[in-house]
């Protein structure tokens, strides 16, 4: 019985040493899917596990609104384009004014 316990402890020591060695050698990439940190035997090319595909992007909740806006107002959707901005209320709509034209160049003094 004593021999069995000692042998079990020795086996545990061997296995834990192996696992610690693995962790020390390959660092935090010591997972089954962890890239180029997997040992293998043989002379054939190694097929490294591929990382899982990235999750699909979340659905864009504003997509329908934007599309409808694009359909209704066309591509002229900037905030400074006049007469194509929706508003709520009964008062007159102050359309955004286009930027003032640049001042004329000063007349040359001859």
């Amino acid at each position, binding site marked *: 019985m004593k021999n069995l316990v000692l042998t079990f402890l020795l086996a545990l020591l*061997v296995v834990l040493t192996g696992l610690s060695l693995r962790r020390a050698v390959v660092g935090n990439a010591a997972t089954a899917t962890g890239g180029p940190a997997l040992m293998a035997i043989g002379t054939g090319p190694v097929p490294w596990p591929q990382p899982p595909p990235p999750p699909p992007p979340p659905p864009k909740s504003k997509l329908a609104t934007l599309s409808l806006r694009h359909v209704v107002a066309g591509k002229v959707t900037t905030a400074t384009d006049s007469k194509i901005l929706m508003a709520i209320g009964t008062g007159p709509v102050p359309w955004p004014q286009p930027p003032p034209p640049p001042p004329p160049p000063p007349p040359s003094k001859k």
Partner: protein
Amino acid sequence: MDNSIAGLVLQCAGIISEAALIVYLARRGLWKRQGAVAFYLGCLLLTELARAGVLYANGLNSPQYFYVYWSTDFLLVISAFLAVCFFFRRACLREERMWRYVRLLLPLTLILVVAISSILFLHNYHKLFFSYFVVEFNQNLYFTCLVLNTLLYLLLQYIESTDDQLGLLVCGLGIQFAGPAATFALVHLTPGEAFARSLSSTVMRLCTLGALFVWAYAVMHVQDKAIRVAGHDVPVLAEVAGHI
């Protein structure tokens, strides 16, 4: 390198070396005396042929090659573990008292590796069985075999073994296990995934070739002293397999 001519040359060199060594053992009638070497080489050759067939039929990035490669890796790591067991038995041929401990130690080690891999798998049960448990088990058993092989080498020094051939066979396995581990340590210190993959893949394949060449030298040119001195001409592999 995987798709280059050098990669193809490495693969062909491995297959030819394994086949040549098996033919040599068969022609010299060394099947029984070198049972572990013959068994391991047979597994390696079968594996390499299967991998090469699937690789050239489906390509490197195909799922078929991925599954065949890592499934056959399971077979190889088990056969490597059995080879280590056989070498322990051969080292303890005249040390029966020590063998009593070792023959308990080896199955317990395998059971512990299975248990630890299972526990890790249960904590990640949502992942695929194959891509997690099998690969995780293979990796754990690799590093355990590396420790066992180092212990065996120390044991050979401790009992002052005169079996030079066994010493070289153990060194060959040491190249197979320790070479990639040293490369991983180097890669871990120098970040760069593409470089790491290329270097690891190349070194692993070179280590397999190196182990084959050391074994070929040991079998062809070094006298098999232990079996003659001890007078054991029994298939020790069967005995080891019986204990496990």
